[in-house]
Structure formats: structure tokens, C-alpha cells
């Protein structure tokens, strides 16, 4: 019983954190069609923001504005210099952002070194929930992610900006014709996407390994989730996170980690083959 509760919490944790990580990629790839291979490096930028804050002796929470600022600046520069020339050329964005990813990894290596870094958990210890001792920070993180997604969903459904983005995604020419500044809207959307990756990096940094190549971990699973869930909707993103996180958790629990990883690959391949639009795509 205790084991089942543990697996249940692990599943919720996996789905929630995957959802947070993939959010930025879903925005950038799902709405703008940019295959951002540097997505994981923006996550790393967030984690290193937490490191900077820790080294300066500031409270952990200060890493959030720092990461958002850092990612917004880098995101603005990247959009202005590279991405805006490549909208509607997805394959070219893949190549360009892969180059960017290498540059960012090397940049982090130059600034902070190859070594592993450790970010302290501000809230350590475990809480007994459903008869299971579960890490307190993880529970807080899951609650935070839930709130974030509810707010985001409400905003996207109701706000003017949400409507403009939907209009732009569905028909850019028509959107421009009715007076929507699509260039500016695309830029803001891109910056929003990479900034949420930075936020994910900050929030996850106390739990994971922090080193210049950490971003690679997050890239592949993010694409798997989008393949399964479908592009362009928050619902698809959440379903994809649940399917990928759930498959890994359940199969790893029943068999072993190798089987878990293999089943994630099999599920992704089956979706690409049989249902290339995913479970819950736009339209």
C-alpha cells in the first residue's frame, strides 16, 4: 500500500515537473513552429541563476527574477538576431538553435567550469503524506506548478493577448491585416517560452545535478511529450506529460529503469507513426 502511494506521488511529481519543463518548448514549438534545440540550455540558465544567488548569499527566491531577466535578455537577443529570420522554416530553426545550444553550453562552461554544482534545498526534510515520507520541497513544487498552470490556462482563455496569439497562430496574414503586430507578438511569445524554461531550471535546481551539459536531459523528453500530447494546446501538454511520465514511472516500477526508458521510446514512436498529430492537437 505504501509502495503504491509512493508510486502515485512519484507519478504526479514526474508529470508536474515534465509539464513545467515542456511548457516553454510547447509555446515556442507549438505556437511559433520553432524547434528550439536550445530549450534545455535555458533550463540550465535558470539553474545557474540559482547558483549565482546561492554564491552571493541571497535567498533562493531571488533566483526567480534573476532567471527570468537573464532568459528574457538572451531570448530577446536570440529572437532578434536569429529566430525572426527563420519563422516558417522549422528545419532551419532546428539547425540554428542546435548551434545556439552548443554556444550556450560552452558559455556556461567558461563562466562556471565543467564541475558539478550543488544547489541547497531551502526546504529540506520529508512530510508524511498518505503514509509515505515524501520530500517537502517536491510537494511544494507540485503545488506551485498546479497553481501556475491554472493561472496560465485562465489567462490564455480570457485575455486579449491570448486571443491575439491564437489569431496569429491560425492565420498570420489575416492577423496582421486586422492590425495585430505579429512580429512583436512572436517576439514576446518566444521570450515568454524561454523564460518559463528558466523558471523550470530554478525550481528544479535543488533536486537535480547542475553542470553545463544538464540541458540535454530535458530536451529529448520534452519533444517526446509534444509528440504524444500534440502541439498548440495546454491540454495536450498536460496529457503528454502524464503519458510520458506515467509510462516511465509504471514500467520502471514493474520491471526496471531500462524497460521504462524503452517503453517511453516505443510510445513516442507509435505516436509518430499512427497518430502524428498527438492526442490533443490544435484544430
Amino acid at each position, binding site marked *: 500500500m*505504501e*509502495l503504491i502511494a*509512493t*508510486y502515485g506521488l*512519484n507519478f504526479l*511529481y*514526474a508529470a508536474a515537473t515534465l509539464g513545467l519543463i515542456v511548457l516553454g518548448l510547447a509555446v515556442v514549438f507549438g505556437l511559433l513552429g520553432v524547434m528550439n534545440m536550445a530549450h534545455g540550455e535555458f533550463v540550465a540558465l535558470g539553474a545557474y541563476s540559482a547558483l549565482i544567488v546561492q554564491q552571493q548569499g541571497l535567498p533562493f527566491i531571488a533566483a526567480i527574477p534573476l532567471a527570468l531577466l537573464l532568459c528574457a535578455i538572451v531570448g530577446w537577443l536570440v529572437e532578434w538576431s536569429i529566430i525572426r529570420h527563420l519563422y516558417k522554416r522549422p528545419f532551419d530553426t532546428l539547425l540554428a538553435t542546435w548551434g545556439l545550444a552548443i554556444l550556450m553550453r560552452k558559455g556556461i562552461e567558461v563562466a562556471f567550469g*565543467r*564541475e*558539478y*554544482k*550543488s*544547489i*541547497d*534545498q531551502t526546504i*529540506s*526534510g*520529508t512530510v508524511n503524506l498518505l503514509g509515505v*515520507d*515524501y*520530500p517537502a*520541497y*517536491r510537494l511544494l513544487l507540485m503545488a506551485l506548478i498546479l497553481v501556475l498552470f491554472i493561472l496560465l490556462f485562465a489567462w490564455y482563455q480570457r485575455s486579449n493577448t491570448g486571443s491575439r496569439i491564437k489569431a496569429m497562430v491560425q492565420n498570420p496574414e489575416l492577423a496582421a491585416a486586422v492590425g495585430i503586430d505579429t512580429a512583436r507578438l512572436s517576439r514576446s511569445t518566444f521570450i515568454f517560452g524561454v523564460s518559463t524554461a528558466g523558471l523550470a531550471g530554478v525550481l528544479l535546481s535543488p*533536486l*537535480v*545535478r*547542475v*553542470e553545463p*551539459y*544538464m540541458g540535454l*536531459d530535458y530536451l*529529448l523528453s520534452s519533444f517526446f511529450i509534444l509528440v504524444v500530447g500534440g502541439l498548440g494546446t495546454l491540454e495536450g501538454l498536460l496529457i503528454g506529460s502524464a503519458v510520458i511520465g506515467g509510462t*516511465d*514511472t509504471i514500467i*520502471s*516500477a514493474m520491471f*526496471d*529503469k*531500462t524497460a*521504462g*526508458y524503452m517503453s517511453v521510446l516505443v510510445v513516442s514512436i507509435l505516436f509518430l507513426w499512427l497518430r502524428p498529430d498527438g492526442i490533443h492537437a490544435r484544430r
Partner: protein
Amino acid sequence: MKRRDFIKTSIATAAVAAAAPGVLLKRAHAADPLKVGILIPLSGPAGLFGPSSQNCAQLAVDEVNAGGGILGRMIEPVYVDVGVPPAEASQAALKLWKGGGAEAFIGMHDSAVRGALTNLFKGQVPYVYTPVYEGGECSPGTYVLGETPAQQLAPVIPWIASEKGASKWYLIGNDYNWPRDTNAAAKGYIAESGGEVVGEEYLPFTADNFDSNLAKIKDSGANAVMITLVGGASVGFNRAFASFGLADSVTRLGTLIEENTLAGIGAENSKNLHSSAGYFGSIDTPAAKAFAEKYFAKFGADAAALNALGQSCYDGVLLLDAIAEKAGSLDAAAMDAAADGTSYEGPRGKATMNARHVSKDIYLAEADGAAFKVVQTFSDVAPGNNCG
């Protein structure tokens, strides 16, 4: 000049010229630098160990050269990046050996690269292999310095069992030959110490979520975990392990948790974490302290942290020197004949070669925050049976 004189002089000159190359070559040979290929990972996943490996090798080269070199010849180190696939590493070594004139090799790299190199060298050139490994290398011309599972575990598991009460062990590692061979050896020592293995699991290198493993460890009732995960996987696993509150009740033992990995695990996650190795940066012997002082004096206070893998390159140079001096030659066959019984003293203590491996001191350290504290030294531990 008369014609006859001219001929005479010419003949004399020609004779001298003909004789000279031999004389000159011979004299030049004695003073010729000795090119040694130092094969270390400067890129790839193990690239983290590049700087400390290169520093340590350079320190040893400078010291041996200051003492007159190997057999009177100054060592000229050539650093080659072997953080690449085995075929490429083998190509680079071949180029340096046949084209660059390297007369000996020292390697700190994975076993896949070692397999490719022993296949290439075929015992024709001396080759010292320095890092921790799974044991069993017996190719001619190859001298193994690294800790074998027998060395890291035979004295350590009984100690952990009696001092820390470890009786139910869970074995977890990455899925390749080093963790599997290490665990195969561990099972014997665990049984001998009266303990039992309650779980065993191997993870792919891509694994970055260890929740299901931790749930199984908790459910198995293990009171000790033997960790053969490497690098980032070890960091991620140990952080998650501690965050679930397992560190208080379960003892951890790793055989490749060095200073960089511990830094990544972090001070708040390192309670009850032990590491067994032939070297730690914090060994408290005069030789080890003197070595650390020289290292940081030469490369600066913020040089790459000292660790068992990087430091093994220093000992690699010392071992090559010791065998060559004993054999009185750098010829591979002569060195092979003289190798058994060769001993040298380094920062790790005294090491003695036998059957291509060395008996040496093994240190068991316990993490104290983000640093290691040696809690027990086991003297002159034998490398086990590696050659048949």
C-alpha cells in the same frame, strides 16, 4: 689546390661524413627526449577529469625530469584526447606511436579504449593503464595501476558490515561491465561478511529520474546501498536518495565517488556516504600532503580539484619510470621481464607490481559535508587474481 690534394681531401671529408651520422646519432640518442603519449579525456563525458589528469601528469614529468629523467632521457609528454570513441582514440595513439615516435604510453580512460589500445600495441610498446577498473587485464606490455574491485571491496565490505551494521545490501549501478563486474565481486564479500543482497539494478546512462529505484530500495528494507553509478547519474541518485530521508538510516558505499561527484551531491545530501579508493585529495600522510601542496603551488589555489582519477596519471609516470629503471631499458620485452617486483613510493603510499597489477594501500573515506575524511586505511591490499 692541386688535383691530387683535392681528391685526398674529398675522400677524407666523405669518410668523416659517412662515419659522422653514426656517431652523431648515438650521442643524440642518449640526450634525445623520450616521447611519452599521455592519453587522457579532454572532451566527452569524462572531459571533467581532463584538467586534473593533465596537471598531475605534468607535475610527475617535471619531477622525474628534474631528477635526471628516465634512463637519463628527459620525458617529453604528448597529451592526446581519448574522450572519443575507441576507434578514434586508437588512431590517435597509432599516429603518435608510429608517426610521432612515442616510446611509451600512459592512459587514463575507459575500458573500451583500453581494449582498442592493447589490440593496437600488441605488447610492442610499454603501456601503463591508470584508472579504477573492473580487473582482468593481462595483455603483454600493459601495466595496470588502478584499483580493482577486489582491492576496493575485500577489506571495505567487512569493515562497513562490522562498523556500520550493514547486512542487507542493495546494489545499483549503470549498465556496463565495470558496475556488473564490481557487483559480482561485491556479492562474494557480502556473503562472507554474513550479509545478503536484497536487490540489484542496472540503469541506462540516460536515466535522470531515480524515484522508482528509491521506492524499491526503501521497500527492500536494505540498510546499505552499494553505488556503481558514474558521474552525473551518481550525483542525481545521491541527491534524490537524501531528499527522501534515506541517508539517516541507510549506509552508502561507492567505488567511484570522487571529489567532483561529491561536490555535485552537495553537503546536505552526503550523510552516511562512503567512498573506497586508492587516493583522496585529503589523505593525511606526509607524502600525500606534500603532493597536494606542490600541486596547488604549481597550478594555483583554484586548480582542478585533486581526485583519484586525475591523480592516477601522476602515479602512472612514476610506475613507468620505476619499471624502466629496473629493466635498464624502455624495450617492451625487457620491461615485461623486469616488471614483477617493481615498487615505487608515491602520494598513495608504497605500491608493488605483480602480475601486471599493483598491491597498494586502499583508503575508505566518509563524506563530511562536501569533503572526504579518510576513516580507515587498509595497507598493501592485493589486486586479486586478474591473470587467469
